[in-house]
């Protein structure tokens, strides 16, 4: 083949392969390839043409396409389970139901999709464990059953519920004088929850970030416990008064169910009564409250106030459901941090005056975050294991 001829042939072939050949060229090519040598030439040319072209796709484009695929998968999975999910939200008490004004789930449907790429597996959870400090100073983790622990003298670790210990069976003969009482204490980190049955049969539910100190066996004059954080008490009836002491009040009862909240760095502490009656002593004042009343003590002005609440709902946390009522975004996120044992940073500009209501179950922070993002009109991402909340148009 002549060089000139070869040049023309190569142009023809590469235009055919590139799809830029016009009708005349196609006709010319169809004639040309009928020759067996030409056909061989073309086959090899085609091989070189396909081999020598280095078609590179940028990492950015590739990543973008991968993200689209992941979106597609999650979006379709969600769409397929959406009907089921919606019924679940309404019917299950343990599910989430955030209601805010005129908010409509369907109008905002597309937003579910926008958050779906956040991978919650990257979220860092608190890894501290529940600690029980025995009277001799030894520390045990009640969640970690071991033959060694099971033989503990002071308490019974063999409860059916792993998140519960009991002191009921630990009979130490007759009630002892208060000076000789032996004390244990339990601390609950964020993201955890625990229950203790005290020696008199009183059951104490402890919320996350709480601490309680109590005698292994109560004395005969009074039943005294010390609390930091939040606990729900189901007190066994007895003539011996049961007293919960916190940093700013004493709650005294004979037999009843109530909820005490006295967090270390909160602006107020409170008592919610479910049934019976309780006497609250604080700062030289005393007040008796009735069922479905909540007494709050403002730590700044030391003022006591009482209001009516739905005590059953407000104490649902002991059954594993977090209920938020009329909370600002910051206090809501703080509750979630403690409840799920995660870190959340709020970079959004949502007004403090906006109030949120909600019910969240313990297991699923992802569903909780989606609902919050939808209601508060914010978005979130996870960076270094921390959840970051920010405005959508940031």
């Amino acid at each position, binding site marked *: 083949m002549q*060089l000139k001829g070869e*040049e023309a042939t*190569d*142009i*023809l*072939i*590469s*235009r*055919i*392969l*590139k*799809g*830029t*050949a*016009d*009708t005349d060229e*196609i*006709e010319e*090519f*169809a004639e040309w*390839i009928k020759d067996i040598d030409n056909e*061989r*030439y*073309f086959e*090899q*040319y*085609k*091989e*070189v*043409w*396909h*081999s*020598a*072209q*280095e*078609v*590179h*796709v940028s990492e950015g*484009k*590739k990543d973008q*396409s*991968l993200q*689209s*695929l*992941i979106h*597609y*998968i*999650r979006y*379709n*999975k969600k769409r397929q389970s959406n009907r089921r999910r919606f019924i679940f939200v309404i019917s299950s008490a343990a599910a989430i139901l955030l209601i805010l004004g005129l908010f409509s789930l369907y109008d905002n449907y597309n937003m579910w999709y926008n958050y779906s790429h956040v991978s919650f597996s990257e979220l860092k959870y608190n890894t501290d464990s529940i600690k029980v400090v025995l009277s001799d100073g030894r520390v045990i983790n009640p969640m970690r059953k071991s033959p060694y622990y099971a033989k503990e003298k002071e308490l019974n670790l063999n409860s059916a519920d792993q998140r519960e210990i009991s002191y009921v069976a630990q009979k130490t003969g007759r009630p002892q004088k208060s000076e000789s009482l032996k004390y244990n204490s339990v601390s609950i980190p964020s993201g955890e929850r625990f229950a203790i049955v005290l020696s008199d049969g009183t059951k104490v539910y402890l919320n996350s970030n709480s601490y309680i100190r109590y005698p292994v066996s109560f004395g005969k004059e009074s039943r005294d416990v010390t609390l930091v954080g939040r606990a729900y008490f189901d007190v066994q009836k007895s003539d011996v008064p049961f007293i919960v002491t916190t940093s700013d009040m004493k709650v005294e009862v004979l037999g009843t169910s109530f909820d005490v909240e006295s967090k270390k760095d909160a602006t107020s502490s409170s008592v919610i009564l479910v049934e019976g009656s309780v006497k609250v002593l604080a700062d030289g004042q005393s007040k008796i409250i009735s069922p479905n009343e909540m007494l709050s003590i403002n730590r700044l002005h030391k003022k006591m106030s009482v209001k009516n609440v739905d005590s059953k709902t407000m104490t649902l946390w002991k059954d594993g459901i977090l209920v938020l009522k009329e909370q600002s975004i910051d206090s809501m996120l703080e509750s979630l941090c403690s409840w799920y044992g995660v870190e959340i940073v709020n970079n959004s500009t949502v007004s403090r005056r906006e109030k949120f209501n909600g019910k969240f179950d313990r297991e699923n922070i992802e569903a909780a975050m989606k609902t919050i993002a939808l209601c508060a009109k914010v978005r979130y991402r996870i960076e270094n294991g921390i959840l970051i909340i920010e405005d959508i148009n940031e």
Partner: protein
Amino acid sequence: MGNFTNNEDLLNALKAGGEEAFSFIFVKHYGNLFSYAYRILNDNSDAQECVQKTFYHMWDIRHKLEIRDSIKSYLYRSVYNNCINIIRQKKLLLKYEEKGQIDLYFSRIIQSPQTEMRLIDSETRRAILQNVGSLPEKCKEIFIRCKINGQSYAEVAGIMDISIKTVENQMTIALKRLKEKLKYFILF
């Protein structure tokens, strides 16, 4: 990202709609599939759409996904079919239809998935890439423009601001060097 060393595990994970499994095969094959689609379609965004659709479709039909030989060959066949659909939609073969040469296009011109898969890991392709790659920069550019892009010597001379004679000389050098290395080719 998950690492699937066992084909059966991977296939089961794909059938279950596992995001990890889909990400895994996406990352593994995307580059080659895109390149393949691009060489058929000669258009960046069409090629991207084609490969994207391939993976979307694979997810849609995951329950009845039947892999006769390998996931890889399923993907190449699927990309090929999607390319043909795009070519049909865009009526890119009108010129061939006019001349009654549709058969020629499908039998000779388009790169079949079988040929592509044979070529992609072949010694031939490796040798071609390596030898074209080791040509002097200018020489390589002239070779690519003429042999791959189908530009005439005069065109290339204009674009590169050199004389036609230089283009001719550089092509001669390129072909001579390639001929030494790739002896079994009649092409050079």
